[in-house]
């Protein structure tokens, strides 16, 4: 089928007498690097790519191929191309949780030592963790993301330190004012919530790419909080179908006092719900244990260089340029996506991008605990965790053993990649 398509394209190119914009590089001019990434609405990636192309002095030229907006659909398209050995992608915009899968399958090249030195300079350790597989750097982080606790200062004088405190406060405020917005639909957002609760409780889902951790006591503690919140009157009615967007809309509607969400909710409230925006303050992700710091989530995009790329040297040179400090600041400025370099948070531009909460974002990314992205079967793991805990209202805070066993069994199944999920 592919050969047929290539032949068709080739004959069309011949028929029209154009070779310059065909699948291969023209005889003259710099090689084209195709960057497969979703069309980030602010068009910040296009801007910095254009600049890098110019600065390369004719070494390469970056072009864009757009992937769908949804992360799972981006992955489907990339995987289909890479699984079939497609040579057209050079640079890949990868979600932070795909590193293990893509690296293990041999779809992306490990980052050469010289490039690694440049692109990991001043980068948060938590971010680099998402870019590594088996202690080797496989991708180049370009932007990060993290969740903060957003609360209303008119109803909550002091932000809650722990989840339990927050639920107590929400219950005291009552359902007309005290709702807590999180993400608990059966999707990746729920995996984020579960992972952060378990990490904040002092354990992890995995101990290695193919090794389970899930210590019983902390995991049950984490599940207990999830169960308590799900059954609390402070939980919104759409709790088991909640996503980032329903949480944002719920908070903007005014009956919520707390929300766990990414920083895009702040500018959104400014334009959608100015009254709510006036009262909106950010704090660090809540703790599970009063004595242990919380482990907030981490998201964002890392750039991978395709194993089938014909221009790997140019592609790595391009990643070095794309993640330069000035480009990260530009991305943050245009799109609101947080930089991956810690030193940039001292710059005035970043303080302007995150008015009043730049420090919270820095602290949040610094303490973040990545999801078990080192697993080469991360998708299995994600499905298994979602199935184990959803709907979260079924978790009985007074009898946590069944919920714990189900989670552990599902994770074991996913690690072995056995059975249906």
């Amino acid at each position: 089928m592919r050969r047929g398509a290539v032949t068709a394209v080739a004959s069309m190119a011949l028929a029209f007498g154009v070779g310059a914009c065909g699948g291969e590089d023209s005889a003259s001019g710099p090689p084209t690097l195709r960057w497969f990434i979703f069309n980030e609405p602010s068009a910040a990636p296009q801007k910095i790519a254009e600049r890098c192309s110019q600065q390369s002095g004719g070494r390469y030229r970056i072009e864009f191929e757009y992937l769908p907006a949804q992360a799972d659909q981006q992955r489907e398209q990339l995987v289909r191309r890479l699984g079939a050995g497609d040579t057209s992608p050079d640079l890949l915009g990868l979600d932070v949780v795909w590193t293990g899968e893509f690296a293990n399958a041999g779809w992306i090249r490990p980052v050469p030592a010289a490039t690694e030195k440049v692109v990991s300079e001043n980068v948060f350790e938590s971010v680099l963790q998402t870019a590594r597989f088996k202690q080797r750097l496989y991708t180049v982080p370009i932007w990060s993301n993290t969740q903060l606790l957003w609360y209303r200062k008119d109803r909550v004088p002091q932000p809650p330190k722990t989840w339990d405190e927050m639920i107590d406060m929400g219950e005291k405020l009552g359902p007309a004012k005290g709702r807590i917005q999180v993400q608990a639909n059966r999707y990746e957002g729920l995996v984020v919530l579960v992972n952060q609760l378990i990490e904040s409780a002092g354990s992890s889902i995995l101990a290695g790419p193919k090794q389970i951790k899930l210590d019983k006591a902390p995991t049950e503690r984490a599940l207990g909080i999830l169960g308590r919140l799900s059954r609390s009157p402070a939980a919104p009615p759409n709790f088991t179908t909640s996503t980032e967007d329903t949480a944002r809309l719920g908070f903007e509607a005014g009956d919520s006092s707390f929300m766990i969400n990414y920083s895009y909710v702040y500018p959104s409230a400014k334009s959608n719900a100015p009254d709510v925006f006036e009262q909106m303050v950010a704090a660090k992700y809540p703790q599970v244990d009063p004595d242990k710091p919380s482990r907030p989530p981490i998201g964002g995009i890392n750039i991978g260089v395709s194993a089938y790329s014909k221009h790997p040297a140019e592609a790595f040179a391009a990643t070095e340029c794309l993640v330069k400090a000035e480009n990260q600041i530009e991305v943050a400025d245009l799109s609101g996506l947080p930089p991956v370099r810690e030193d940039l948070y001292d710059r005035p531009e970043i303080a302007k991008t995150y008015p009043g909460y730049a420090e919270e974002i820095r602290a949040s990314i610094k303490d973040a605990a990545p999801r078990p992205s080192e697993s080469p079967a991360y998708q299995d793991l994600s499905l298994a965790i979602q199935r184990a805990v959803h709907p979260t209202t079924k978790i009985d805070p007074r009898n946590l053993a069944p919920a714990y066993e189900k989670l552990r069994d599902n994770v074991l199944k996913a690690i072995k990649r056995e059975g249906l999920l």
Partner: protein
Amino acid sequence: MTAVPVGRKERAAKRAAGGPGRASDKTKAERKLAYMLCAPAVVAMLLVTVYPILYAIVLSVQKIDLRFPEESEFVGLDNYVAVFTSELFRIDLFNTVLITVVSVAIELVLGMALALVMHKALFGRGLVRTAILVPYGIVTVVAAFAWFFAFDPSSGFVNSLPLIADDKAWFGDRANAFAVIILAEVWKTTPFMALLLLAGLATIDDGLYEAAKVDGANAVQRFLRITLPLLKPALLVALLFRTLDAFRVFDSIFVMTRGSQDTESLSILGFNQLISRLNLGLGSAVSVVLFVLVLLIAFVFVRGFGTATPGTQGATN
């Protein structure tokens, strides 16, 4: 059911008249032409349906995962064992059957009513028919999103209707989620059912009704004694098509719940294994099982109820 004896009689008559063995040159040439005319369609079918089906069967007896290319091996029926011993498969099979039976039953009743309206409409016939067919012209995914947004508590209008709690989470529990999914399916495909039944109604001779009226049969009797029996072939074909379609339900569930709240269908199960997990072996096994179940349904309809497929003379005699 009388088709078989008729066919036999015809064949016997042909044999008596010389049989295919001694067909004239003209017949041979015609037959050759017929084969040649069919050939492109057959080749196309072989390429686009038979090849993928066979390939799926080949994949389903292997351990094969796109993410672990070096681990591929032949595993016989292991994948099928994994499918049939899975609790998930049983739940999803039940869900699929439930959606199929309930939605097709509602569609049948509604479709029949609409077909009668379209058939009997005295004025504005074209308008009535067009209006009824509109939902069928809408892409399923788009229709699913429309229903999803209508019932979603944060964007929908349904919760602001009287008698419905303002904060009802329609996709938050199994029964309500199923209700909305089935409603969307029914809304979307009832016109298809109505259209097929209307075609059946059009074939019924009006003289029969006149005669029945003269004999003093009331409307109910005319419906039960004339319309229903004569509509049976069209009815069964409509049921068969809709059942096969409903059994592969995917779009509505995928859009509305992604299979959460235990609303997952077999198609979504296959999708998860194939597309999300890239586990081609397990996913193909699910697909093959789904294919065999669909074949079984078609077989039961054709053999058990004597449904005529289009192009053959069925039980119309």
